[in-house]
């Protein structure tokens, strides 16, 4: 006690400074967290990530048995229904080229219009209409993607899922195999889950 008492006058000055330091530290910590949140963008759950993934999925697919001459001059990523991707997708495709073709975003209201796309993102807002939309696409060589629940069950090809606060995707190879689309094995390696078999596995 004696010692604490005697040391008090010496501490009275810096007390004021300590409060300021704590305030600064807290502010710095907040700022750091903000920066960390911003930098964690690739691992986020938002549509910004999904927009990027849509573009990247295009880079890992190819069509088997389809002559290059039969392809369109642009790589079209279509959005069916209410568009949740908004400007994220528009920003993502700027100046992007896939397979030598400039990437374009096409927003469509009718599933039939999706037959001309390379990738078709079906809005989760389509809800119960999704099976109909997929039926409309049929066996056309269009990679169907959505983040709607049970999308794969309806016969969709790729479904965005959330795991550990990260966007991942599940693949339905059965649906993919009905078309000429071939997904790279690398892509399948990073899929959260793969249902169905690869064309090689299907062959006896």
């Amino acid at each position, binding site marked *: 006690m004696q010692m604490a008492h005697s040391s008090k006058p010496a501490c009275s000055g810096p007390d004021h400074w300590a409060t300021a330091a704590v305030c600064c530290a807290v502010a710095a910590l907040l700022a750091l967290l903000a920066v960390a949140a911003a*930098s964690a963008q*690739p*691992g986020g759950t938002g549509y910004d990530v999904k927009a990027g*993934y849509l573009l*990247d999925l295009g*880079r*890992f697919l190819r069509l088997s048995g389809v002559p290059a001459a039969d392809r369109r001059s642009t790589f079209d990523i279509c959005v069916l229904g209410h568009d949740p991707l908004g400007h994220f997708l528009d920003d993502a495709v700027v100046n992007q080229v896939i397979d030598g073709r400039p990437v374009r975003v096409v927003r469509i209201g009718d599933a039939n219009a999706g037959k001309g796309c390379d990738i078709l993102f079906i809005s989760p807002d389509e809800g119960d209409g999704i099976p109909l939309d997929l039926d409309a696409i049929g066996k056309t060589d269009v990679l169907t993607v959505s983040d709607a629940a049970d999308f794969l069950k309806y016969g969709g090809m790729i479904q965005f899922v959330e795991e550990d606060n*990260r*966007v*991942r*995707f599940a693949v339905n190879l059965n649906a993919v195999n009905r078309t000429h689309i071939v997904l*790279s094995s*690398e*892509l399948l*390696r*990073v899929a959260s889950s793969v249902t169905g078999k690869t064309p090689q596995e299907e062959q006896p």
Partner: protein
Amino acid sequence: MKLWDRRTIAGKLMRLNLQVTGTALLLAYLAFLAYDLYTLRKDLISSLTTEAGIVGENSVTALVFDDQQAAQSTLSALDHSPHIRWAVIERADGSVFARYSSNGQPQPELQATLAPRQPLGYWANGTNILLGRRIVFQGRNLGAVYLLAETSELAHRARQFGLLSALILTLCSVIAVFATSTIRHLITDPLTELAGTAQVVSREKDYSIRAPLPKSSDELALLVQSFNEMLEQIQERDRALEESRNALEQRVRERTTELTEANKELEAFSYSVAHDLRGPLQHIANIAFLLQNSGDAGLSDEHRTLIEKMAAGTDGMAVLIDDLLNLSSATTTPLRRTAIDLSLMAESILERLQADDPARRAQWTVARGARVIADEGLMHIVLENLLRNAWKYTSKVDVAEIEFGFSEDDAGTVYFVRDNGAGFNPRYADRLFRPFQRLHSQSEFPGTGIGLATALRIVTRHGGKIWADGQVDRGAAFCFTLPYVVEG
């Protein structure tokens, strides 16, 4: 260097052998090691580059779709690579995406980052090599993979090389030792024997010795053979020389004997001639004397003149006989050397000459103290001849000047008799000392022509020299040396 000098040839050869082998091996070791390390390192970097490429390719989707687990599983395949200790995949922003370390090794100290646009790079630190390779997918920079390999293999290789080289060097040393004994047998032993033979030959001058021929037929054998041939030649030459010398000696002996015999005969002949001539001559001289002193015994003036000429002729012949006997004794009389004073001798001779011819006006000087060790009788003949000559050849000058003296020369003491008489032509100076050779006519200056020849013989027998200087009408000087001089 001295140590090197003293060694035997075998030792030198062994040392040379070891030095060359050692140096060659060391150089080879260094060269091979350097090359091996260089290749190993190059291979390692090449292998790392490939592995980084594969890892990068396999990590593309993981990076694109942010699947760290997939990247991790890609990196775990590096377990099969024996040299990779640590690996990391970084995102484009430099944050760590996946990490691998062999056997849970801690992160190494070697840290480096590729420059923004650098596709490939490697850094070395001690035994570690860090290689970085950028992961690019369709022109997009996705990040980079860094692989760290341990190069302890290099050090291991260097150690192995060193060990192997040391082993070979030891082996070479052993071989060199064995080789030395062979060298000794093949080269050194024959050389040593050759050197020994040469030494014996040089020391004992015995050229009949031969060096043993080595069994081999190499240059060494050739050397020994040549050496032996040389010895044989020397021996041959020696023999020839010996024979020639013997023959020469034999011939000299024979000639000497012949010559001595001839000389003796000649001496005996001339002595007997001279001696036997004396009797009849004295008889003639006596008759002439009686005729001259017989009063007026019916002799005409003409007869008297003839008798006078006869008396003069017998006198001249008596002188000639005396001279001949002198010459003979100058050659045959054994030398009896005693200490004599030439000055006193010269003085008495000159006094006698003056007494015999009191009308002559002569000035003579004799230097004192010409003491020598010589045969007194013979030296008297020499001085008598020289002084009498001087007296004779100054007979036509008004005042004769005769000098006996001596001077010191490089060759020793030179005694001389000088006069101011008729002199002689120096071109014929060598003729003066030959018997019966005269430079003046009998009518001018009478004489026998034997006196100087006798003087020459006597001086020569004493080991000295005699010579003459002079000019016509300017006098003459006769000089001689006598090697044995009485000191003081």
